[in-house]
């Protein structure tokens, strides 16, 4: 297993270089000028050229790219053109907020999806199944931009149970996490239902039932664990959707996360900051998927890493 982990971590390097290359090329090739955004269009041409030289933007693109990659390999993401501070310090200020929101969204998704998926999968076609899958369809269909304000009106304004916006204690996290986690909960619930229905037809389930276990107990003790592999795979794959959903949720709930920093950076064509933020998101995705792969062994002891 150690060898597998080392190989997977080593595989992160080409992924990081690939993401960095793509991000670098895209942001440099789209129209827009960070120096004009910084100095304004009343700036003397000499100042604009001077700043371009100081930032190295007058060098050929391949040279800029090599310099960027060298910095990256030394762990240096450069300095934000707009904020005149190191990119890593700006990211480290915002990343915890995004992780907190995405993590809470994931917990909400799991907390909703597992009971719903189990109820639906335990008795397909029953009332529980219809109700659970009705929720799943509603959860997938309602966009964050509608669900967020709706939750605010009910829980913050009418009932006054929770704060409206901003980042603070646990109470501030509840509504953004529900907004973010609902759609994922719906997807996971459907997947779990489907897996449980498949598992119900397995030989080992029939054996369990013939040994006298009730259908519910057999499903809980044997079926659920065997269904988890596909659900965990889906969780890993959905982390990208969760992070991009976090971006919209951050705007609705005035949540000071990395997504809003990335939007500012894109608007201002702050190249180093865009590259740093995208790389951070990409690495989060890679790490979560690595952890997902490692989880398989805990869920299913038959899984062997080679």
């Amino acid at each position, binding site marked *: 297993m150690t060898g597998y982990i080392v190989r997977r971590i080593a595989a992160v390097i080409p992924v990081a270089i690939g993401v960095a290359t793509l991000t670098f090329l895209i942001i440099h090739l789209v129209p827009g000028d960070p120096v004009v955004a910084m100095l304004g*269009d009343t700036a003397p041409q000499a100042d604009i050229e001077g700043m371009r030289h100081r930032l190295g933007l007058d060098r050929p693109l391949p040279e800029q790219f090599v310099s960027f990659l060298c910095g990256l390999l030394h762990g240096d993401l450069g300095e934000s053109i707009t904020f005149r501070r190191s990119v890593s310090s700006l990211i480290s200020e915002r990343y915890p907020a995004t992780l907190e929101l995405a993590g809470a969204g994931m917990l909400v998704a799991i907390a909703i999806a597992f009971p719903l998926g189990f109820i639906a999968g335990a008795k397909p076609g029953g009332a529980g199944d219809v109700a659970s899958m009705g929720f799943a369809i509603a959860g997938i269909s309602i966009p964050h931009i509608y669900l*967020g304000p709706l939750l605010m009106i009910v829980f913050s304004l009418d009932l006054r149970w929770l704060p409206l916006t901003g980042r603070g204690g646990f109470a501030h996290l509840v509504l953004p996490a529900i907004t973010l986690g609902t759609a994922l909960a719906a997807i996971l619930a459907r997947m779990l239902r489907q897996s449980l229905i498949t598992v119900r037809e397995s030989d080992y389930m029939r054996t369990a039932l013939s040994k006298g276990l009730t259908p519910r107990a057999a499903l809980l003790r044997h079926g659920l664990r065997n269904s988890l592999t596909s659900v965990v795979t889906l969780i890993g794959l959905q982390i990208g959707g969760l992070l991009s959903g976090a971006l919209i949720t951050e705007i609705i709930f005035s949540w000071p996360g990395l997504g809003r920093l990335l939007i500012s950076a894109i608007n201002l064509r702050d190249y180093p900051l865009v590259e740093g933020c995208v790389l951070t998101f990409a690495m989060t995705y890679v790490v979560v998927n690595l952890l997902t792969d490692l989880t398989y062994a805990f869920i299913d002891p038959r899984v062997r890493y080679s």
Partner: protein
Amino acid sequence: MIQVDIETSPQATDPRFATDVYSSRINELVFDSLVRLDNHGRFEPHLAESYERRGAEQIVFHMRHSVRFSDGREVTARDIKFTFDSILDPANASPKRGALMHIKSIDAPDDYTVVMATDGPYAPALTSAMQEIVPVGTPLPGKSGSVAPAGAGPFRMVSFHRDESVVLERNPYYRATADSPRMILFKVVPDPTVRALELTEGICDFSENNIQPEVLPYLSTQPQLKIIKSPGTSYRYVAFNFNDPRLRDARVRRAIAYAIDRDAIVNSMMLGTARVASGLLSPQNWAYDGDVAKYPFDPAKSRELLEQAGYSVGADNMRNLRFIYKTTPEQLRFATALQAMLKRVGIELDIRSNEFATFYSDVQHGNFDLMSLQWVGFSDPDHYYSIFDSKMMPPIGMNRGHYSNPEMDRLLDAGRTTLDVDARRKIYGQVQQLAADELPYVSLWWDDIVIVMNRDLSGFEPTPSGSLRSLATVRIAPPENPN
């Protein structure tokens, strides 16, 4: 404490580097300047007690005594010199340097006298004296541990969390009345629906020009809120690209102007939160001249002008134009309305929407036939020079439509070198008439200042520029005694 909701985070807390709207609005409350504008766009002394012109190229400012920064230090002429010198130093890369390039020197012969010398007669020099002042030795942004430099304004900044909030607290050295606010919280709330909800629930006390017009009727029914509407100076326009031979023909530009039903847009889309504009300068500006050519909605006249210009309906030689704009819901609605209006006179408008940086790049590079933008925050009519003088085409200026007219150039040169106010007013009257005849821009509207505020606040005086300076003198009604 008063809570003010703002839609985007201020970018810079140092007034030497702040150019975005919210940085400027907040910095006005924290820092002070030699002069400020009154509600008619005229200068009034502030840190300066008085000022005088000495010849055509010098302004001498006599400063008030015993004015203090929030750290207790007295504001002296050395602070003024330091602030301007640090902006003008190219090594510091201040985005404000371009606007101050006409300043040859700033001298402080003694602690209470500032001499500003320009590199020639320059009528709008006083606009430079609106620069907010920081103390001598203030480090560059990112090189100081403090939230913001000390200022001589009514408040000091005690916290700044980008994309979250800015908290201001009374400057202990600034005179204040007992019932004026001790603290102001500027909270960044990007979502317009949430801003409206916060007002409804009394979480937010004050918002200016960031509530969607369609929500205002609902907010006006809320007993705890009041809405104040007053004329503003922000100017929305459609610009033509003069590099396109079709648009170089004044008849075509006039035809397009006649085809736009601006009253309908202002009433239906802006829901009465704007006024149809006759030109760049609004009636609130001292140099405004409303006696200019107007283009009321008249599709028949528009079609007639197009026919005269040789672009008959159905012919392939014109009637297809590209309009670009920045992606916002408001701009999308305007673009769609414009497309429908021009279609009525036979012009097919291809509308292209992009996020700001791409849009702005297209504007700078002339990749458009028509484009729409807004001018915000200018005060002196010399702004015409930046946008219509033939020497000011990109990349060195903002004449993005590449408009060129020797008569306009002559008038604009005269306007910036004539120091007599009455003579300048006459010159800019001619500029406004020429601009309305020639139509490098089709004027659309001036945005109103729309304030939604808690009824318990009183004494706020809106300014045409949208300044929030009056928040310093707002009074908060004491809570009612339940007995």
